[in-house]
């Protein structure tokens, strides 16, 4: 039978039952490989449920450093009878299916083109442990030990990891190491090791770190100087504020007085959360909230106020699959349009699209500067994939000489000197006006903030020309904004080409891999990663300079493509969609397949969805 053979390059997928403690064991496995110097890309695929339903954890290992989903499964480790039929089906021909053979495999599931490996996990547990909770927990650790033998991993890396992980809870170290050994010894004694796929210590990790985007954003908020966080729980954004809270407690409590240099308020809903952020920012503090699609919908009215009244606001949107409640624990990039034009009336919101934890941190910190400099909401658009999965990333860095850009705030001294103050006066010609903080000066500088039309001195007016003047200034400000937001990144193909791809956020990693793959087949494509909306002129030029541009994104309706067409008035033929919207991160194979199909297929109907939908799940 065919046997997949490879060193340091494979995809393994764990199938577990939600709530059985498998997450930490699976994580231990990925982290051990990472410590062996191997780039890993772990992804949780979990149900919107606390206990009992199937959950998966997919780890991509790639010595070449590909960090997106590849597609396909080389090894399935299945300890969930409920999903076993599906799990074995997913294994590539010649791949490996590892299961708990305490009970024999249902013969109807048997595949002859897959290497089946049984390990009696339950039996080992039952012989070793009497406590039912221990039996459940250690079963997971035992299969990690078993994998170490099957893949020829450095066992010491695992034991060191356990020691680090349970620092402070020393009682747990020995039992965990013992469980690892149980699995390891059983496999060594009873099975052929290693299998065709194995790992070798490497040096492809350097000083990189493993970090999830939400934690990176929480840290970014701290470094960006956020003192007020208001939020309402929603998956997958909750851990942003959790992380903020965890670290802010360490660094912002006055050791003498116990006083906190921050305030976290769990609001009653998203309406209130964004309201608090707006109130705090209006009053000169840096404030943020984090939410996901349903929250964005609720926050829209307030976002319009912040846009029109020009109040700095930082909002983190960790996107999940919509519409409505959709698939709360699955990933998508489908809030792009509702965020870009959030709220009624002519409104445009600034979006940032980070692609890595490092960028989450950087954009997170930068967003406060941007919000105050530009006096408008800044929405950071990440997604579940980046937010809740550990991602390999450059280490986080901060320039200690950096000071916050507090934007145009007129001080008490300036007001005292009698500098003319009109809240919406465009003094500097960049369409950004000066604001004052409440309480700044006893006699000057007070103004009325309102969502209604007003003149340059913030006085309510319904005169059409005043309204138009203001709306046109906001358009000019949009141009100014283009100069401040992160620029797109371009990767030029090895050979000259007039076809290109454009992607953003978490579509990057798999897109890059698929480009390498296509290049090997002789298909060369230039690439651009858009990092912000408004798009700057480079984005326009890039699209204009190519005959055809594939826009790769993770939603059904090609939302970024729509935005590009709307903002630049490109015709639909120019931009072709490459989409995935089944709730899992887009894979490199899926992208390659769609692009090849488009390129070979002659006439493509960009708005014809059925064809694409059929491909989405591979």
């Amino acid at each position, binding site marked *: 039978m065919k046997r997949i053979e490879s060193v340091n390059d494979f995809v393994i997928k764990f199938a577990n039952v939600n709530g059985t403690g498998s997450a930490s064991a699976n994580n231990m496995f990925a982290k051990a490989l990472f410590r062996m110097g191997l780039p890993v890309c772990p992804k949780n695929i979990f149900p919107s449920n606390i206990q009992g339903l199937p959950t998966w954890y997919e780890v991509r290992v790639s010595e070449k450093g590909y960090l997106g989903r590849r597609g396909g499964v080389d090894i399935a480790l299945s300890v969930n009878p409920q999903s076993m039929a599906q799990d074995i089906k997913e294994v590539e021909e010649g791949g490996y299916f590892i299961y708990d053979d305490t009970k024999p495999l249902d013969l109807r599931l048997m595949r002859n083109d897959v290497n089946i490996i049984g390990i009696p996990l339950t039996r080992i547990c039952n012989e070793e442990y009497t406590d039912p909770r221990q039996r459940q927990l250690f079963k997971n650790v035992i299969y990690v030990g078993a994998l170490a033998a099957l893949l020829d991993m450095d066992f010491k890396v695992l034991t060191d990891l356990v020691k680090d992980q349970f620092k402070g809870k020393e009682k747990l170290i020995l039992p965990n190491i013992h469980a690892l050994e149980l699995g390891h010894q059983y496999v060594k004694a009873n099975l052929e090791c290693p299998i065709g796929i194995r790992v070798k210590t490497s040096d492809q990790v350097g*000083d990189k*770190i*493993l970090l999830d985007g939400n934690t990176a954003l929480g840290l970014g908020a*701290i*470094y960006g*100087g956020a*003192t*007020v966080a*208001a939020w309402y729980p929603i998956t997958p954004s909750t851990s942003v504020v959790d992380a903020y809270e965890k670290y802010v407690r360490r*660094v*912002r409590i006055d050791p003498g*007085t116990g*006083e*906190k*240099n*921050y*305030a976290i*308020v769990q*609001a*009653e*809903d998203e*309406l*209130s*959360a964004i*309201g*608090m952020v*707006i*109130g*705090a920012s*209006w*009053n*000169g*503090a840096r*404030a943020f909230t984090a939410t996901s699609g349903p929250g964005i919908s609720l926050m829209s*009215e*307030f976002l319009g*106020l912040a846009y029109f009244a020009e109040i700095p606001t930082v909002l983190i949107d960790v996107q999940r699959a919509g519409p409505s409640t959709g698939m709360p624990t699955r990933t998508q990039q489908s809030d792009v349009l509702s965020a870009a034009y959030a709220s009624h009336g002519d409104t445009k919101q600034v979006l940032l699209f980070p692609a890595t934890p490092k960028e989450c941190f950087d954009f997170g910190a930068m967003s406060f500067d941007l919000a105050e400099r530009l006096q408008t909401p800044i929405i950071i658009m990440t997604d579940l994939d980046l937010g809740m999965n550990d991602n390999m990333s450059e*280490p*986080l*860095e*901060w*320039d200690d000489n*950096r*000071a*916050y850009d507090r934007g145009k705030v007129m001080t008490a001294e300036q007001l005292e000197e009698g500098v003319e103050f009109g809240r919406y006066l465009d003094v500097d010609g960049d369409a950004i006006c000066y604001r004052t*903080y*409440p*309480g700044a000066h*006893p*006699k000057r500088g*007070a*103004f*009325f*903030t*309102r*969502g*209604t039309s007003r003149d340059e001195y913030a006085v*309510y*007016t*319904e005169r059409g020309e005043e309204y138009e003047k203001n709306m046109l200034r906001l358009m000019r400000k949009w141009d100014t904004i283009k100069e401040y937001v992160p620029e797109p990144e371009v990767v030029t193909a090895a050979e000259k080409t007039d076809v290109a791809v454009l992607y953003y956020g978490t579509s990057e990693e798999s897109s890059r891999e698929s480009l390498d793959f296509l290049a090997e087949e002789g298909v060369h494509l230039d690439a651009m990663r858009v990092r912000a909306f408004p798009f700057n002129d480079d984005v326009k030029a890039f699209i204009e300079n190519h005959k055809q541009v594939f826009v790769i994104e993770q939603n059904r309706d090609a939302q970024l493509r729509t935005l590009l067409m709307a903002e630049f008035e490109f015709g639909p033929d120019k931009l072709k969609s490459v989409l995935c919207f089944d709730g899992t991160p887009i894979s490199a194979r899926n992208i390659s397949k769609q692009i090849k199909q488009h390129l070979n297929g002659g006439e493509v109907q960009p708005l014809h969805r059925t064809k694409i939908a059929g491909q989405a799940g591979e």
Partner: protein
Amino acid sequence: MSYQIPKFRHPELPVNDLGYTKADYEGSISTLCAGCGHDSISGAIVKACHELSIPPHMIAKMSGIGCSSKSPTYFLGKSHGFNSVHGRMPSVVTGAAMANRDLIYLGVSGDGDTASIGMGQFAHVARRNLNMVYIVMNNGCYGLTKGQDSATADEGSVSKKGDANVFSAIDLCSTALQMGATFVARSFSGDKDQLVPLIKAAISHRGFALIDVVSPCVTFNNNAGSTKSYEFVREHAEATGTVDFVPMQKEITTDYEPGSSHEVTLHDGSSIHLYKMSENLDPFDRTSALMNMENHRTAGDILTGLIYMDKDSRDLHDVLETSRRPLNTLDTEDLCPGNQMLKNINASLR
């Protein structure tokens, strides 16, 4: 449009301790209907702030949407103002107060703004005991959208259209009490003598202070059969007692009976002096306050005055243990943990 009030003033207008005249606490000329109760409330706010000698710029006046919510334009012209969105003033004030605890937050809202679309935020800001004054200009109807019944319209109360309201009313004072508000009062826009000291006391109270002011809408709800009309309220108001507010500056006096159950010293040293209490009302007992209100309501009366106060109120900043220094005065050097800490974090992530 808002019109500026002419600058000319009589030179001998009385000045307060800061040297400000009452005019320094006024705003633009009101564009509300002539006779609207909301304007009287604005007048009471001006009087209270002037008499308390509050520096006008240290007040932030915040509101939602509605005729009532427009009124901040008509008082305290030297203060920053914020008209937010319909029903969501409380969250904006919460954020603002988190950012700068040194300002006085005066929220103004309508009964539509508070009891319908903003009911959730109202309940939660009360429960969090945010240090603010929350004035509801309660006319039992929607003024700005032309007279629909609001959720505080009494059952059976007749609107201008002539229909009797078929739903039961939300009583904002009871709601606030149940939600944990630490200062609850009710008044009538036409009773300045009662309203002004209540506003002063509310400003000095540390925590959430609700004043529900019945404020007839002359245009849409001042007709016979309305229980929020001038005539009805004048006939049915029953005061808990008269309230005297004594600001901190004048505290050292001898004409108080120390320890008198009707005299309350507030956190800032000011005191409230209550006399002529209505029977059975103990304004420091939440349950008794609730019962009394309910008794008057069933009797068809409106109980006015200070209904409840918690003398030992702990506001949101106390609970969250936020720093004495306003958060909005902190900058890079106070807030940024520096690169070394990131190095440590990086090391923990390998």
